[in-house]
């Protein structure tokens, strides 16, 4: 059965997904349909988590827009996502960064990972 699930998922699987994890700053290019027209919108923010596996894997991106925290959850293999750009790798000690929701301003920063 597992193989059959993979078979169905394979059709939608993307092979150009960059490596990223929680704490990274991402720029997600989302295709948006407005009536007949289609355009690409960017959503730039911090990755809070990656969740799930295979075709159902998702990731959460959080940004502060006009002083209000906004989070969007994207399926990694969604055809709506044109491109995921990793702008900056963060230095974090956990896989889920929900504590960022309670931090404001300078405290909500994440140090950059230096190799």
């Amino acid at each position, binding site marked *: *059965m597992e193989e*059959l699930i993979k078979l*169905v998922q394979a*059709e*939608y699987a993307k092979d150009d997904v960059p490596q990223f994890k929680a704490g990274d700053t991402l720029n997600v290019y989302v295709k948006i349909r407005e009536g007949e027209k289609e355009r690409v919108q960017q959503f730039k923010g911090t990755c809070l988590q990656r969740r799930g596996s295979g*075709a159902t894997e998702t990731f959460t991106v959080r940004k502060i827009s006009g002083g209000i925290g906004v989070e969007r959850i994207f*399926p990694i293999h969604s*055809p709506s996502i044109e491109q995921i750009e990793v702008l900056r790798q963060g230095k974090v000690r956990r896989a889920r960064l929900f504590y960022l929701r309670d931090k404001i301003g300078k405290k909500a920063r994440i140090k950059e990972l230096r190799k």
Partner: protein
Amino acid sequence: MTSIFDEDRKNIACTLIYVEPNVVTQLRTKETDGYRATQVATGTRKEKNTPNALKGHFSKAGSSPKHKVLEFEFPNHELNLGDTVDVSLFEEGEYVDIVGTSKGKGFQGVVKRHGFHGVGGQTHGQHNRGRAPGSLGPGSTPSRVFKGMKMGGRTGNSRVKVQNLQILKVIPEKNLLVVSGAVPGAKGSYVIVEK
């Protein structure tokens, strides 16, 4: 379960159903049995675990021993002994009903079993009654509890039919149906797909 994306790029939850070809093992007729039906069998069963009587029954249809035997009516199909029924019966986009045996939940209270809301809230002096059923009925008249009163008890493990699930995909070479939404039962259990 998994999910796929449709043309509108919507993420649709779906279930995969593996449809092994069903072998017609017996034809019930009005003359011999008093009713019309087609008996089909599916699943695999070891030769050594099959009683001789069943072995004979399956060999009549020229089939290997099967695990599950069921009777259906196929009003629009002319089927003979030994024929197989498979996923080609279904088309993409059509709607089906799916019958399965729901997962057993054991002894459950009324809140889970019948959707009661429990008694009281956090306040008004009550405690320990958050998931209680409340009153079972009037008092000295009729001085009994009516039959069929909803109470706690064994939950799940019953026949459940889910109606109007769309077939998103048919993959004949893998004997696979992809159906939107969830179907009753545990992974690997048998379901009936009704057209």
